[in-house]
């Protein structure tokens, strides 16, 4: 029998890709690192929790419920492997681990729907307990019914900043402040693109209005200076307001994020070509409009390749599956493909609007004090990266990594890589794409030494 199609990830893109393959009579293997299907935005709570979908997902409750129930209906028709991490690629297939058991999964084609993490800009003090990524603060609330603190500050930029702050407010935890590095004037630049999805834009405006009504201070055009705290947690964040005045906000937690970073490491291990995407100011695998990568039988969908959000991910997942079916000469309606492309065109304009409304503040990386920790794993500082750039003459990020170790730790630069590249580029006086991207190495994540190997 021919090797199966593997779908990696069971969020919006992976679920819809698997569903379309099943509709065509295939039985895909669905490998998901999470124990429960749903991905991050539609992450499920544990089975013994009882909050209704409306409470967890707000305006997106119906979409979340549909994604979960549609997946449950797929279960008899797929080979579902939850809690399974992909950590490498070999000639024979994907290398995975579950419960300390390593297995090789052969495949004839693969659809990667690996999603994204927060994009992080380091700030002095960000390694203190109580500082979390924005996504982390949302996961704590959604999946565990916990707040990361009693008076958190949400600092960074992007629509998620306001959404999560509003979700905390609704859960009875009033944010101490929302601090956005982008100004209102900048935000207006993205307005035209964001108008393409008026309903989504209206939700964003509503979150801000409700935060203001509840007395949560919203500040725009800020520059973070440092996070202060003790061994047992955060006590304050110090920041510069739009007029340049230094201010301090007392808080017991900081949730921070600057848009998203596509999780592209598996595509890198599969030796797919990458391009620098100016809209999202990061490298990503090169794909055709339907999700075909540069290598045959490799497809990508969702935020793991193009940062267009969960709704677009559902469409892109389905489209990538259609592309795969088409490449196998299996019947796919040309109408279906045209429809999906049409939906994604609107999503593209919206995503570009978001990207211009909430740009990544690259200049802040260049301005970080030398003693700021950039790599949290190994405490490599901004100064260490500048030393690699100048005294050690590293023209690109992998040389800098070899010499002073940014991105060498156990997260492989997932948290620090984009900021480290900006620091290096600024120190060298070149555009960030010129310093390249951190090469991926297996294992993608730490593996226990005492794994058993199943044939």
């Amino acid at each position, binding site marked *: 029998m021919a090797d199966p199609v593997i779908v990696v990830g069971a969020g919006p893109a992976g679920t819809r890709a698997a569903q379309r393959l099943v509709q065509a009579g295939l039985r895909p293997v669905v490998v998901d690192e*999470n124990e429960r299907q749903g991905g991050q935005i539609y992450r499920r709570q544990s089975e013994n929790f009882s909050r209704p979908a409306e409470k967890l997902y707000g305006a997106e409750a119906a979409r979340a419920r549909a994604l979960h129930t549609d997946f449950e209906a797929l279960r008899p028709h797929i080979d579902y492997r939850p809690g399974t991490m992909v950590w490498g690629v070999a000639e024979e297939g994907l290398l995975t681990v579950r419960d300390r058991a390593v297995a090789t999964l052969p495949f004839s084609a693969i659809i990667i729907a690996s999603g994204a993490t927060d994009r992080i800009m380091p700030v002095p003090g960000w390694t203190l307990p109580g500082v979390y990524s924005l996504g982390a603060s949302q996961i704590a609330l959604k999946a565990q019914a916990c707040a990361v603190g009693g008076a958190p500050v949400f600092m960074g930029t992007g629509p998620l900043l306001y959404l999560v702050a509003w979700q905390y407010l609704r859960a009875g935890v009033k944010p101490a402040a929302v601090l956005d590095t982008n100004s209102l004037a900048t935000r207006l630049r993205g307005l035209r693109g964001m108008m393409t999805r008026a309903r989504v834009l209206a939700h964003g405006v509503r979150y801000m209005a409700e935060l203001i009504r509840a007395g949560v201070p919203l500040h725009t055009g800020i520059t973070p200076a440092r996070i202060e705290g003790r*061994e047992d947690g955060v006590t304050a964040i110090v920041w510069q307001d739009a007029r340049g005045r230094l201010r301090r906000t007392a808080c017991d937690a900081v949730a921070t994020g600057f848009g998203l970073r596509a999780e592209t490491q598996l595509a890198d291990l599969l030796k797919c070509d990458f391009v620098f995407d100016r809209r999202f100011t990061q490298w990503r695998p090169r794909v055709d409009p339907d999700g075909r990568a540069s290598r045959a039988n490799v497809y990508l969908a969702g935020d793991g390749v193009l940062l267009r959000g969960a709704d677009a991910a559902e469409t892109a997942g389905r489209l990538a599956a259609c592309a795969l079916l088409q490449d196998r000469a299996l019947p796919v309606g040309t109408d279906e493909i045209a429809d999906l492309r049409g939906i994604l065109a609107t999503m593209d304009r919206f995503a570009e609007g978001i990207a211009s409304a909430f740009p990544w503040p690259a200049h802040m990386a260049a301005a970080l004090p030398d003693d700021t920790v950039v790599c949290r794993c190994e405490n490599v500082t901004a100064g260490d990266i500048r030393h690699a750039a100048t005294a050690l003459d590293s023209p690109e990020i992998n040389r800098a990594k070899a010499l002073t170790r940014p991105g060498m730790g156990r997260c492989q630069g997932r948290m620090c890589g984009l900021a480290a590249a900006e620091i290096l580029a600024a120190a060298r006086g070149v555009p960030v794409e010129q310093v390249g991207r951190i090469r991926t190495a297996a294992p993608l994540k730490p593996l226990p030494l005492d794994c058993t190997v199943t044939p």
Partner: protein
Amino acid sequence: MTALFRRVDETGRRGVRLVVDGYEVTALEGDTVLTALLTNGSRLRRNEFDGKPRAGFCLMGACQECWVWTESGEELRACSTDVRDGMRLVTKEVPWLTR
């Protein structure tokens, strides 16, 4: 000891007991190890390079900052491991390394 996390809902679940740094603490069924530790304290581990406390960062299995030790020397990724009754965890000096 200060707890970093606070529960805002779902508090009616069954309790589980675990031992953290030699002290018995309680958590709730359905908690991750991370939630169990941070509703009882403010630390998961110490960074190998400066010895300072860390309490996780991304909660989605990407940053690798929430690995905790069990007393028997196993490592667990706290954000993606469910808590079990009777777990014995260590968040400070690991005894078999400093002995």
